């Protein structure tokens, strides 16, 4: 999608690494050999994760213990549909992260939104469309509050969103009393579980939202400014970028996306569970950091994140079908997160020439 962005760029970056202190003459004397040798390397870095994903799909497609089910339409549908919520939560994480802030409350916001949506239908008999709107609106408000705390009051996002996540978990427990909410509009559940063109309907919703997020981050001045803010917020202010407003907007978008994730969650489960959302947060974090190692290495980006979600989901699905115990899911997520964080910070450092 944004391949226009970087093949030349990363190649040049590689050459600069080589040229760096040695001076331009030495690099100019042997450019042919260098660029010839570096070309596959630069692409390998960008497409390592997608390639790994393809290899894993191929492996489990052939591996006897899983091959019968793994590539079947049913399994593909289940994997994609199950990951729709995590993908949206991951997209919600990207915006604050690009602006340089963590947002730990996205999991909690998603669950809150699912509770509000389900309760509006089950407890207050509101129409389907209004319930969904309410769920997303509540989530957007929580995101706006997060933005207010970080952008206006200068609170540390790491701590304040952790506080918000805890608070939301508590409120959800208080309202639900720890019980699941059931009795939503049947049309809602149908939407969550039915397919269109052979794929679950929710997948199309996620695809549209992922496209919008990608568009916002790469093809609007807002997205470009957000990357600048995340890179150096003092410099961003001094070139006249609206630091506070854009940071606030990033958190609002984050809340809204998490709210949409919550609506999809309610549709998928046919109600809402009392939970604090950490089971959504951690896979999403892993996916976002994995995503920062691909496509645009060293930067949080939407395409990489989607690949990251699929990578974890496909791997876990394959392992489960091969007979691995159910703790494998968590172990895999944890290891993926550790490797992803290490790799993405290493790539980011190297890109800016500090780690070489």
């Amino acid at each position, binding site marked *: 999608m944004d391949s226009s962005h970087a093949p030349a760029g*990363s190649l040049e970056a590689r050459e600069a690494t080589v040229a760096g202190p040695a001076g331009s003459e030495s690099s100019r004397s042997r450019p042919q050999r260098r660029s010839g040798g570096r070309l596959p390397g630069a692409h390998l870095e960008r497409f390592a994760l997608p390639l790994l994903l393809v290899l894993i799909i191929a492996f489990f497609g052939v591996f006897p213990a899983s091959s019968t089910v793994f590539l079947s339409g049913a399994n593909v549908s289940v994997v994609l549909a199950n990951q729709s919520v995590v993908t949206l939560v991951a997209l919600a994480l990207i915006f604050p992260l690009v602006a340089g802030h963590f947002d730990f409350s996205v999991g909690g916001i998603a669950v809150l939104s699912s509770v509000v949506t389900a309760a509006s239908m089950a407890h207050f008999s509101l129409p389907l469309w209004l319930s969904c709107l309410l769920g997303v609106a509540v989530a957007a408000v929580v995101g706006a509050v997060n933005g207010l705390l970080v952008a206006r009051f200068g609170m540390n996002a790491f701590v304040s969103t952790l506080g918000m996540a805890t608070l939301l978990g508590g409120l959800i427990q208080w309202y639900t009393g720890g019980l699941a909410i059931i009795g939503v509009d049947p049309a809602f559940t149908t939407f969550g579980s039915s397919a269109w063109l052979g794929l679950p309907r929710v997948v199309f919703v996620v695809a549209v939202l992922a496209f919008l997020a990608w568009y916002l981050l790469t093809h609007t001045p807002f997205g470009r400014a957000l990357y600048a803010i995340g*890179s*150096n917020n003092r410099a961003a202010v001094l070139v*006249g970028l609206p630091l506070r407003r854009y940071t606030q907007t990033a958190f609002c978008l984050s809340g809204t996306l998490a709210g949409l994730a919550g609506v999809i969650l309610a549709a998928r489960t046919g109600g809402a569970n009392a939970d604090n959302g950490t089971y959504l947060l951690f896979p999403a974090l892993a996916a976002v950091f994995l995503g920062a190692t691909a496509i645009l290495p060293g930067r949080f980006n939407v395409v990489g994140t989607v690949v990251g979600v699929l990578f974890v989901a496909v791997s876990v699905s394959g392992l489960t079908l091969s007979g691995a115990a159910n703790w494998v899911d968590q172990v895999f997520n944890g290891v993926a997160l550790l490797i992803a964080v290490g790799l993405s910070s290493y790539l*980011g450092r190297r890109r*800016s020439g*500090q780690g070489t």
Partner: protein
Amino acid sequence: MAAHNEHRRSVPAAAAGTERPGEHAGTVALAAHGLVKSFAGAPALSGVDLTVSGGTIHALLGGNGSGKSTLIKCLAGVYQADAGTISIHGENLPARQVTPRRARAAGLRFVHQDLGLFDSLSVAENFALDAGFPTNPLHGIRWRELQNRVDGLLAHYAIAVRATDRLGSLRPSQKTMVAVARALADQQESEYTLLLDEPTASLAEDESRELMAALRSRANHGQTIVLVTHRFREIEEVADHVTVLRDGIVAGGGPVADTSIAAIVDMMSGASLTAGSAGVEAALRTPAPPAQGAGARSPLFEGRDLSRFPLSDVNLSVASGEIVGLAGLAGSGRSTVLRAIFGDTALTGGSMSLDGAPHEPSSPADAVRSGVVFVPENRHRDAAFLDLGVRENASATVIGRYWRRLVMNLRMERDETHRLLADHSVRADGIEIPISRLSGGNQQKVILARWLRRKPRLLLLDEPTQGVDVTSRRDIYRSLRDIAAQGCGVLVASSDLDELAELCDRILVLVEGHIVADLDPADTGRSALAAAVMAADHTPVHLRKDQKTNG
């Protein structure tokens, strides 16, 4: 702590008894002979001699690059000199073998410009972090003992604070004295030699005066003090001797009583005595800017009575097409002037106008909208997006321009970036590499170019060529002259006087928040400019004020 006690023992104990003023006077406390130090073949010190008598305050003066900080670092053992000897209380040490540990053992104590104090801790804790906490057998801290000891030291050094006070609540001069007392905490008598590196660089006038009085009183108690400074008044007020460095050699020195300010300026700038002092007089008496110039060029920007610490009642104007220099030392308020005009800091008083209309920027973004742009001093911290590409850095000021038909027009952005880099002679291996991979000079050219492409009305620059190589410097000067020729007003703050002399049509000299002179570089010598910048003497202000009322 063990190491600490060791030092204590190794120091030759001075005669016991009460303090006798001038005990060490006459003896040589610290001497250096023929110190030579070069870095990668470039000499920083070429045969420096320094003799500091005990119980005196010895001022060490010199401009940027004169070698005074190299000298201090050689004495401290941070660098090892290539040749020469250092003798401390008559004990000779080859300068090559001086290490921080040996310098300390010999009784040299340093207070650096960064005092190494922690604002959020108490005074007592700040002491203990250096000397160690007194502990009981269970390794718990004996707070009572620590407080008593620190209170005793504070009383001894006449610092009017308590050991339990939070360091952040102290005034700046008190903080410096706390650092002094901490450095000297383990001396028995006043046998150590204290070296202070530019202690007043960031202090306001009254604060630095207070600090000087405190140091003078220590010297009167027999303490030997070496004071690295660039403020003339301090030397006159407190120092007994002065040594002036220039280009790695001793340019002159002697007892302060026998040395005039004019003579010191000449030593620093290298001008001959007579010509230099004439220049000083001329500089300090330069009348208001040429009247015909002011009439011909309508002022583009005007600031009246701008006040914001450390500035007080600063008046300045920049005409369209004019390059105005703002000369001043660190702490003179150079950067504050620029930041106030750019809306990055609020003024406590005064008014500004741009093209006749009031200029009251609420934020940098607001200033940018009205055509005022700013290149900050600290490129890495305040200007560059280090991990973003050259293209993204170059178009950060004009992102909106490339948003055409609902997408970012990358092709147009790339073409324009290539053209921009070529126009400003930026040498980079492509436009997508991170800006951190460029040399400092090329980074600065990108930072400057991204503002110039907006065709600003007023361009503010703070130290535009810091860490920039000579060729890039030429390119930057050329870009600045070009934009000025197109009618943009340029205001450059710099500590590099040669740069200002070369670049500017007019130079304003800022000393401790006041504009003390308004010079034309064409008829002002380099030494006169240096004299005006470093004169921490307020007479020129009054002089100029009188002239204004007269004329």
